């Protein structure tokens, strides 16, 4: 068994003028979930496509399950499953036919492919629709069938490229449960995401990438410490209480910033710094003592924007979509 399930060093890929990935390093161990977190155009999809032998890197090396992605693509392919951003199904075939076909093409025997397809249809709550054409499936069902397809050969390394983008909250939760279950089987899972929350819940390690390179790497807690100040927002029942609330919170050292008195049109909300433990109960207690009624409390988690703001000094604004050229490269570049 190779030491790392995924190991990439100095990966580079350029599309025309656009340097999509520049000197990217990644490592993931067996039984680990690695989240690659970054905004649109950061180079996530390009990285996944290089690691799954769909794109040849311009420079750098990468090994998956101990096999070189350029020199030993066949071995790599035998070890991986990929669920890309586009649903990759034959819509004229039924769910079961899709799975059996992909199982056969993954070199499973006819019997093994049929058995595995049955198991997956059951596990992904598709048994009832197994013999209907994929064309008739809802978006969530297609996504589930697509995920099931990448598991047909029980690959030891699984790549999920933005597996929950475009899913409703219930389906998203289903994908999360699935990922957790897979990680317990000891396989290695790399998933890309734009959501810090998703990376936080699922991943053992998070690699934050921006402009095609890793800008931070660590556990969710390590990254959050770098992001720093969390805050609470408390909504008061009476706008008239606002000055008093600001005063007692300032005295308690809990005020996040110099409060701005609310307009008549806005609800009276006051920001509380939450970087020390027990900030919420303390804040509520001092306000209670001052007879200020709090009707709502919101914990503001650090968002991807906050991570980027901290790590790069720039917000993760809408950049030109650099994952676009990946798809063009499929048609053109030789």
């Amino acid at each position: 068994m190779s030491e790392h399930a995924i190991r990439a060093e100095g990966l580079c890929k350029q599309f025309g003028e656009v340097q999509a990935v520049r000197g990217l390093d990644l490592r993931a161990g067996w039984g680990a979930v690695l989240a690659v977190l970054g905004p649109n155009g950061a180079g996530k999809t390009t990285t996944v496509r290089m690691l799954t032998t769909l794109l040849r890197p311009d420079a750098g090396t990468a090994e998956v399950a101990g096999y070189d992605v350029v020199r030993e693509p066949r071995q790599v392919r035998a070890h991986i499953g990929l669920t890309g951003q586009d649903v990759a199904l034959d819509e004229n075939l039924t769910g079961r036919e899709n799975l059996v076909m992909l199982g056969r093409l993954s070199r499973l025997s006819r019997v093994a492919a049929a058995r595995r397809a049955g198991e997956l249809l059951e596990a992904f709550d598709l048994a009832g629709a197994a013999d209907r054409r994929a064309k008739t499936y809802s978006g969530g069902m297609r996504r589930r069938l697509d995920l099931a397809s990448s598991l047909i050969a029980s690959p030891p390394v699984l790549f999920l490229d933005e597996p929950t983008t475009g899913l409703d909250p219930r389906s998203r939760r289903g994908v999360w449960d699935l990922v957790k279950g897979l990680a317990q089987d000891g396989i290695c899972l790399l998933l890309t995401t734009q959501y810090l929350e998703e990376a936080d819940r699922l991943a053992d390690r998070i690699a934050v990438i921006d402009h095609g390179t890793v800008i931070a790497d660590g556990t969710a807690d390590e990254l959050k410490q770098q992001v720093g100040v969390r805050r609470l927002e408390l909504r008061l029942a009476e706008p008239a209480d606002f000055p008093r609330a600001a005063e007692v919170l300032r005295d308690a050292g809990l005020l996040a910033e110099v409060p701005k008195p609310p307009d008549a049109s806005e609800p009276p909300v006051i920001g509380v710094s939450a970087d020390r433990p027990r900030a919420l109960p303390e804040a509520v207690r001092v306000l209670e003592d001052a007879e200020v009624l709090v009707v709502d409390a919101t914990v503001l988690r650090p968002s991807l924007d906050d991570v980027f703001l901290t790590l790069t000094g720039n917000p993760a604004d809408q950049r030109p979509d650099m994952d676009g050229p990946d798809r063009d490269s499929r048609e053109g570049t030789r």
Partner: protein
Amino acid sequence: MSTLAAALDSARARAKRHPTGALTDALVLTARLLRQVLRVPEQIVFTIVQPVLFVLLFRFVLGGAIDVGAVDYASFLMPAVFVQTVALGSALTCSGVAEDLHRGIVDRFRTLPMSHSALLVARTLADTVRNAFTLLVLALVGIAIGFRPHGSWPAWALAALLLLFVGYVFSWIGVLIALLVRSVEAAQSAGMTWVFPLIFLSSAFVPTRTMPGWLQAFSAHQPLTAIIDAVRALLLGLPAGSATSRALAWCAGILLAVVPPAVVRYRHRSS
């Protein structure tokens, strides 16, 4: 960790090359394409309607004005329509490959430890099955409008095999075009345009002796004339001369010229 160990073992087994692996891949994918045809029957209906209209047009509208000598026009026409049908079949191959290439599913195939050219082989095999079906229906239509093949049974069998082989070879031209153009729309028109000049500048619908000299020279030395002459001679029991061997030589030459670049191009596009 036992699950991981098992997954790694089976992955290693799947990475090994199997002597029959590529064939299995091609057959699995051929089955996929034939299922598609059965599920979307409109396509095959139009594949048949078009040559039938063509037959009716030439037989009843234009045919009366064309003098083909001793043979009746229906019998002269049908072999050419058979060849035209398998040649135009390559346009369907072309759009089919182009559509596959622009779907996510090709990426999935490319991440499997399967034979890469299997996708292309499967497409040409499935289109050969489709051609066989279309030819059968067309032959029945031909007989209904007065097509009387006077050749022997073995000669008909040989003609049928030659037609299927020609269809197979031409479908690889469609594959190559699909891999060279950038969009499905371009593939749809490019896959068809090269057929018409070749078919009309051949012995398909009019005897070549009525053409100007320079055109006769072109027509005599292009593949479709050789193929049509061979099929016509076999079906009608006429002397074929060197037409059959010239037709086979053209097919072999085209196959050699088209398959390697198509396979290489497909691999390039995958990296």
